[in-house]
């Protein structure tokens, strides 16, 4: 990750002192609940169902092992010994005491971490591809651009009190692994004919209520203009975003109300006033920021060098792990490895302090001391020599982190839901566990093939249910927890939003419903290569609806329409 200089460090330290003072004023009764709420949110501190929740920023998902160990230390000292990876590449602690949060932030600052702008109506953590920098299909390494946006958006004096939260994602590869189409601003980095970096700028995407796919505002933005263009969009949004209705306050509603042409005109008019001004990026700054990312050293192997090959291991478990959890690397002889945090009996994305330490040790030994958090709530070691894969696999298996389910139905994305979150309509973690348990058989999982199943406990869609091939949404019906099922969603450049298949289900019905959807797919796919989502796209939702509802006991069940409007 980017190494702070003394100015970066000083600003983070000053933020800790500011929050210490705010907490003191609040506890002394000098700051109203409302005011403190807004201020603590901008430091990642929610008050949840049982206790405060602290969301720590992991800029673009990148951690070094010193930071991982610090997170373990915080989990042990200030929490109940575990932490949770969020779907926005951040880390959450579920049980810190409010009075001790300034101390936690001070500890984080010692390893160049913070919780700045991880919640509240401001610009949030910029996210990106978890294979950034190593993916063979990469065109532009997005990290530098993410960091430039991070610095620009941190403490931006004008944009800290927006109508609603604001999320930016950057992708620089042929495949989109950053979900740029469902962000307030999505940036697709590419190269102009002369090799220089250009961005396609999308705006107005988002999950949550009224999910929308981002629309193109500018097709080719030369890199020098990245920050001024983003500034222009933010300014138009801060002026025009709705503040009378929190449910219509995201930028997507401005884009929708204006239409993309008028929205673009407003942005371009604003940008014309900023263009080539002091906010224009310089080569010197891009070089400075790049140089502050440690550059991994790779051994150079000849094409036929045996040490560049994956050693064979006579164990089907190893082959499965290679097939699902090991990913290609742009450097010959290297691979990226996913650590699956989707396990029996553990909420998706939860990690203990001991596991964090163990992962840090493995990362130091085998992966250049770097760990990445993915939006699928797993970890990635991005720089592993192929020769080390067998021993790493053994070690991960010993930790229970080698389940070969990346991309499969077992890799469920799931928000904290009703067990923790005060906004939830329904629990989500027990649903994830019930579905996971139903599909515990690896042969069966491999036969089903790629299938994303995402669960959110309410319309805020932190579990990204709209872009799951199967999406599950918790809804409240007369005080009871029900679950709506969507199919047909997908992330990536072919992103699509799932559609509700019909009436909602009780919790205990959900695994059966998923099973019927899967059976329907298996019966109708033309070949094993046709994935669930491809099949839904080819044959439409109707056969799936029939499969689900024709055996259903209550075809008339709770009214779908009113649920759909929840």
């Amino acid at each position, binding site marked *: 990750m980017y190494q702070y200089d003394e100015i970066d460090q000083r600003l983070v330290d000053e933020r800790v002192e*500011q929050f210490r003072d705010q907490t003191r004023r609040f506890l002394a009764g000098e700051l109203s609940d409302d005011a403190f709420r807004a201020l603590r949110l901008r430091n990642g501190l929610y008050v949840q169902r049982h206790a405060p929740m602290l969301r720590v920023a992991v800029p673009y998902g990148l951690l070094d092992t010193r930071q991982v160990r610090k997170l373990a230390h915080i989990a042990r000292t200030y929490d109940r010994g575990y932490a949770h990876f969020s779907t926005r590449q951040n880390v959450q602690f579920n049980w810190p005491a409010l009075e001790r949060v300034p101390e936690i932030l001070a500890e984080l600052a010692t390893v160049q971490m913070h919780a700045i702008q991880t919640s509240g109506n401001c610009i949030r953590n910029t996210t990106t591809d978890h294979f950034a920098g190593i993916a063979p299909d990469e065109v532009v390494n997005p990290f530098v651009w993410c960091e430039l946006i991070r610095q620009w958006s941190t403490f931006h*004096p004008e*944009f800290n009190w927006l109508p609603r939260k604001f999320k930016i994602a950057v992708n620089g590869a042929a495949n989109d692994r950053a979900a740029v189409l469902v962000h307030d601003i999505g940036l697709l980095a590419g190269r102009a004919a002369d090799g220089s970096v250009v961005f396609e700028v999308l705006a107005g995407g988002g999950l949550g209520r009224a999910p929308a796919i981002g629309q193109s505002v500018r097709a080719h933005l030369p890199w020098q203009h990245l920050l001024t263009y983003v500034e222009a969009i933010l300014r138009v949004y801060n002026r025009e975003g709705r503040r009378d209705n929190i449910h219509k306050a995201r930028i997507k509603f401005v884009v929708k109300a204006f239409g993309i042409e008028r929205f673009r005109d407003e942005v371009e008019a604003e940008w014309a006033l900023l263009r080539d001004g*002091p906010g224009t990026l310089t080569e010197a700054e891009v070089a400075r920021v790049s140089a502050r990312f440690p550059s991994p050293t790779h051994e150079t192997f000849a094409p036929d060098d045996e040490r560049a090959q994956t050693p064979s291991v006579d164990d089907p478990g190893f082959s499965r792990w290679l097939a699902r959890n090991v990913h290609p690397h742009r450097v010959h002889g290297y691979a990226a490895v996913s650590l699956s945090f989707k396990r029996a009996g553990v909420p998706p994305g939860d990690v203990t302090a001991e596991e964090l330490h163990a992962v840090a040790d493995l990362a130091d030994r085998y992966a250049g001391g770097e760990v990445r958090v993915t939006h699928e709530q797993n970890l990635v070691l991005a720089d592993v020599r192929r020769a080390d894969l067998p021993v790493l696999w053994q070690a991960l298996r010993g930790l229970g982190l080698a389940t070969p389910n990346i991309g499969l139905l077992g890799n469920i994305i799931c928000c904290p839901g009703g067990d923790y979150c005060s906004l939830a309509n329904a629990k989500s973690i027990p649903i994830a566990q019930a579905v996971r348990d139903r599909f515990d058989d690896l042969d069966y999982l491999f036969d089903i093939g790629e299938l994303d199943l995402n669960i959110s406990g309410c319309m805020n869609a932190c579990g990204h249910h709209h872009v799951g091939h199967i999406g599950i949404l918790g809804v409240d019906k007369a005080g009871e927890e029900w679950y709506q099922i969507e199919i047909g969603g997908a992330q990536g450049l072919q992103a699509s939003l799932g559609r509700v298949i019909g009436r909602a289900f009780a919790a205990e019905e959900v695994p059966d419903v998923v099973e019927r959807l899967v059976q329907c797919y298996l019966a109708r796919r033309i070949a094993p290569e046709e994935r669930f989502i491809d099949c839904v796209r080819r044959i439409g939702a109707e056969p799936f609806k029939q499969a689900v509802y024709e055996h259903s006991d209550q075809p008339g069940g709770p009214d779908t329409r009113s649920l759909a409007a929840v």
Partner: protein
Amino acid sequence: MSTVISRAGLIPDLWQPSEDGSFIDAQARRGIAVAGETPAAEVAAAVQARGAALVAIRIPSFADGRGFTLAHDLRRHHGYGGTLRATGGCLPDQAQDLFRCGFDEIALPEGADLEVWLRTARGFSDAYAGNLIEPQPLFRRRTG
């Protein structure tokens, strides 16, 4: 009379409110009051029409950030060079950002703790993004 602070600290309130909601100072210059959600072009036109030397922007609630952009727009896009004052519901923790967006002064809410306002207004030693106090973004000052 309000308690008014600037970046330099406590300052005298030079402006007398008059009955129609506008302001006047000892040299008989005029000031106008506008709501934070008013479009900048409208405010700029009112400044022109009334020869205003003070614009007091009323921030309806600390959570409503339009006043920050309005101040920016008046300064940067409409060339307003008179005094910009923030009134209404802002928090001491916002003072530094208000100044950075182009406000010269803040009329403190009733019962405000002056010491807290003065302290928080100096909370951060620098800012990444360019702004009305320091137009050069940090990166230009870092790398020349």
